[in-house]
């Protein structure tokens, strides 16, 4: 894997070339981000077809606005911010979607408590080959209200830093930490018992053979 610095330099060169008229290079510029943009979109619209629409719109908007990219942030962060705006715009249009939680003050919310377990057996990442496990994770992220889902998707799915997450959402670092904490505990509370059960079932099943 190319280190982050050299990737950023390559991207800066690609962007300069695209802006100079070599527009075909945009295909290459965005290739590494096809999945990030799609899953960012999917975590908000919940429907694969619509997520694909959002992703396409985001890539088109980034192409049209590329001249405004100043290189102060990473291209990936800029692209993710565009995707987030596009996803939020869609959500606002869907009047049936409950939006009150967007106004909820996360600092004033009640305390969240984790699921209490006495032991935890690691769920190996091979478990993700199972549709059941992937669905559990997707659903748990979907169940979070938007303010929590945004921080989790940026920080724990896209793996942005706390600072980049704050910048993308235009909120303070302290707010990111508070929301992230609550969101992670909510994920643990929903997922730990289900994953444990799914894992135990699997082990029983394997031991019959």
């Amino acid at each position, binding site marked *: 894997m190319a280190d982050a610095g050299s990737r950023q330099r390559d991207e800066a060169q690609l962007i300069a070339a695209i802006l100079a008229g070599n527009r075909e290079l945009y295909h290459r510029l965005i290739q590494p981000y*096809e999945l990030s943009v799609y899953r960012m979109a999917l975590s908000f619209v919940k429907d694969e077809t619509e997520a694909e629409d959002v992703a396409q719109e985001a890539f088109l908007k980034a192409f049209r606005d590329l001249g405004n990219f100043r290189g102060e942030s990473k291209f990936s962060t800029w692209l993710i911010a565009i995707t987030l705006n596009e996803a939020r715009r869609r959500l606002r249009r869907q009047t049936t979607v409950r939006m009150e939680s967007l106004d909820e003050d996360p600092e004033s919310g009640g305390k969240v408590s984790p699921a209490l377990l006495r032991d*935890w057996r690691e769920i190996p990442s091979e478990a993700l080959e199972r549709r059941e496990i992937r669905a559990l994770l997707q659903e748990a992220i979907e169940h979070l209200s938007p303010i929590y889902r945004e921080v989790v998707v940026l920080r724990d799915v896209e793996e942005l830093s*706390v600072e980049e997450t704050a910048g993308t959402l235009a909120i303070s670092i302290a707010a990111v930490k508070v929301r992230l904490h609550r969101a992670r505990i909510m994920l*643990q509370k929903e997922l730990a018992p289900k*994953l444990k059960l799914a894992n135990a079932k699997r082990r029983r099943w394997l031991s019959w053979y």
Partner: protein
Amino acid sequence: MVLECKHVWDYISEFLDDSLPAETKELVQKHLANCEICSAILDSTRNILILTADDRVFELPAGYSERLHARLAREIHAANSRPEKPSEE
């Protein structure tokens, strides 16, 4: 100072991000060494975050890439066929 379980829970997220002040981190570590419940909560949360960061959780639909690049190609073609405008700045 001894931390109670419910206080340790407040530190889990920052403990995982390794962003706690050194003294707090040490108190949490001491508690974890003796508390199987808090250790299990920490381990399960860490494990869940490892899983959510895995690219396989959300997969691209079949044909997504082809459709995206076809759409971009149309946009690029349209941009190439527009007469050069003077810079807007």
